[in-house]
């Protein structure tokens, strides 16, 4: 059997912000069609990882490599990453007054289609596509005329991010705490949006504090990140374990381990 090219491959990634190291040697491989969950306490570096993968200029990669479908992701500008099929659902998306969602989304979709050699989408097809996705996410048509994220409630922001994801049809989506602050109904809708995309062409990295969303998304793998590293990886049962025991437990255990392995040069695999 031919070895599949991983959708995303991160090797020994070190990232700093304003001179402070946040991600400290992270390894992660996501294959086509896989859903991975990344859990961990506040400040463990999850959002830093997400923004780094998307190419935020404030985040400095000090060491390591990242490949997206075999291509060196770190050499690409954020817009090229997006056109190749990487998507980030932002925890705090920027507000952009005066720019309508419909207008913006059409430009974004055409940018992606341009990369795929598909040419611009016709207005009629675009409207049909939007209508379908709005229904899927139980959103009103009038939403499209609003300015990008301006005056959105927390729930509206999250739905809007997922709407963009379903329209742009990425090959790898990173969801940065898209579940936070959603009530159970909204959570089901958002999870439904993600599930609608599942298939061999779609992979996802779900960053979350809580196991709650994972009931609806059923990840193939769960990783726990603490202090800039993935310290545990396993199946869905791992999420359950952390939900029950909390993160302090792993911190304590980790402290012991670090003492044991410090001489060996560390770094989890």
């Amino acid at each position, binding site marked *: 059997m031919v070895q599949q090219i991983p959708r995303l491959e991160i090797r020994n990634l070190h990232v700093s912000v304003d001179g402070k190291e946040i991600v400290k040697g992270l390894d992660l491989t996501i294959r086509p069609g896989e859903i991975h969950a990344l859990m961990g306490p506040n400040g463990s570096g999850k959002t830093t990882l997400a923004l780094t993968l*998307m*190419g*935020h*200029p404030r985040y400095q990669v000090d060491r390591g490599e990242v490949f997206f479908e075999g291509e060196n992701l770190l050499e690409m*500008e*954020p*817009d090229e*990453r*997006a*056109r190749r099929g990487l998507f*980030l659902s*932002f925890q705090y*998306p*920027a*507000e*952009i*007054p*005066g*720019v309508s969602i419909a*207008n*913006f989304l059409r*430009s*974004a979709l055409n*940018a*992606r289609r341009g*990369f795929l050699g598909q040419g611009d989408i016709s207005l009629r097809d675009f409207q049909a596509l939007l209508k379908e996705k709005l229904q899927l996410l139980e959103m009103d048509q009038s939403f499209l005329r609003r*300015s*990008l994220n301006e005056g959105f409630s927390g729930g509206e922001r999250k739905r809007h991010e997922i709407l*963009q994801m379903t329209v*742009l049809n990425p090959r790898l989506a990173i969801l940065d705490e898209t579940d936070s602050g959603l009530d159970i109904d909204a959570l089901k809708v958002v999870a439904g949006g993600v599930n609608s995309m599942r298939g061999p062409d779609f992979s996802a990295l779900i960053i979350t504090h809580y196991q709650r969303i994972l009931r609806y998304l059923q990840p193939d793998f769960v990783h726990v990140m603490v202090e800039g590293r993935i310290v545990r990886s396993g199946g869905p049962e791992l999420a359950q374990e952390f939900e029950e025991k909390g993160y302090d437990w792993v911190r304590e255990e980790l402290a012991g381990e670090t003492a044991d392995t410090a001489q060996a040069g560390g770094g989890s695999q």
Partner: protein
Amino acid sequence: MTENAITIAWPDWARLEEESEARQEPSWLRELRRRAFRLLQETPQPNGRDGDLSFLLQAEAPQQVAEQRAAEGDEAAAGAQESLLVEAAAEMPLALVRDGKVSEAGQLVPQIVLAELGEAARQYPDLVRPYLFNSALKPGQPEDETGFYLLLQAALWDWGLFLHLPAGVQAEMPVGVLQQITAAGRRAFRHVLIVLEAGAELDLLEETVGGAAVGAAWHGATAREGDDGQGNRPLLGQSWEVVLKEGAKLRLGLVQNLAAGGCTFRLGRALLEKDATLELFAVEVGGRWSRLQFETELIGQGASVSSFALFLGTGRQRYHLDLGHLHRGEHTRSDMTVRGVLRDRAYTRFRGLGYIHFGAQGASSFQRTDTLLLSRTARADVVPSLKIDEDDVQAGHGAAVGQVDEEALFYLMSRGLSRVQATRLIVEGFLQSLLDKATVPGVDRVVRLAALKKIESQA
């Protein structure tokens, strides 16, 4: 550098009088000019610092005025100048005063008196005389730079418009005015007088084009490029005098779209009686140097004004904007919203004033200014201010000058838009969110066209 040789050589009175007679102006109008002319010679000239225009006002041979007029006619006929207004008018109903042809537009709007100002002074002296340089604008005051420019206008205006609406009449269609000055003409002075009687309503959108100089230049760098080789640069003076009687409503758009070398000083003043409403939307996109001062005096109880200004500067364009709201009546309201985008070495100086005089109880006065700088060499100097002599009022101001928000840029790029596309979208949104608040018909179209042209000029 060979700039700022301030040698203003006046046309002599004999010549002005001759011209006035040739135009068959009534004697009271000639007297008005004479008084302004006399005061002009006693008024200190602007000192030429801070980008003052006075060095432009150099000697001009008498016969050039006639030549200038002829040339203007030619250029107007040739339709040489690109107009945003004409382009926008194709998509909206508009009674357009173009190429100086006033009567045609007047016919489109029943009951309005719309006439060339000199003509109106002859035909409707009772309507014109009480107001012309005698109401909102009074030559002789104030005794500063503005006063100097005002005297120039009152003494030298060479073409003008008079718009009058009788009580209770609402113009069915917006009036558009295309003011065109020519490359050959080195000076033009234009005055517009608008009087709306009680309850009358009018929308007026005016664009100033032309003034294509021999090039564009200002202050140093390419010192001689913008003039005709003898130190003369094209210059346009414009003034607006607005009187709104009780309950009258005017929406006024003023678009400055001069060609690259054009220089202009513009001053306007509006008087609002009880419950009158003014919406002003000033757009600055063209020219080399433009100074716009517009003051609204809220005299009557419940009068209100919203002033919007939008400026788009590239290259070495300089805009000096002064907007003032003077509250005298009780429960008067004012809002000032200013936005601008500057690139290259463009510069804008903005002064905003909200002045609540004693007695204007329950007044509210707000100001907001935002400027986007798209290059490190663009500059804005923004000073909003409030003076309050009354207790029971609401007032506030805010100003921001900054670069494009990096987080917004990153967000758009993370969806696949290039840096250029993302910047363009942010700038368009920045302008759109101002246009969303304004209601002057046609302004949104004009601004969108202007922005498009400015953005294209980047390529």
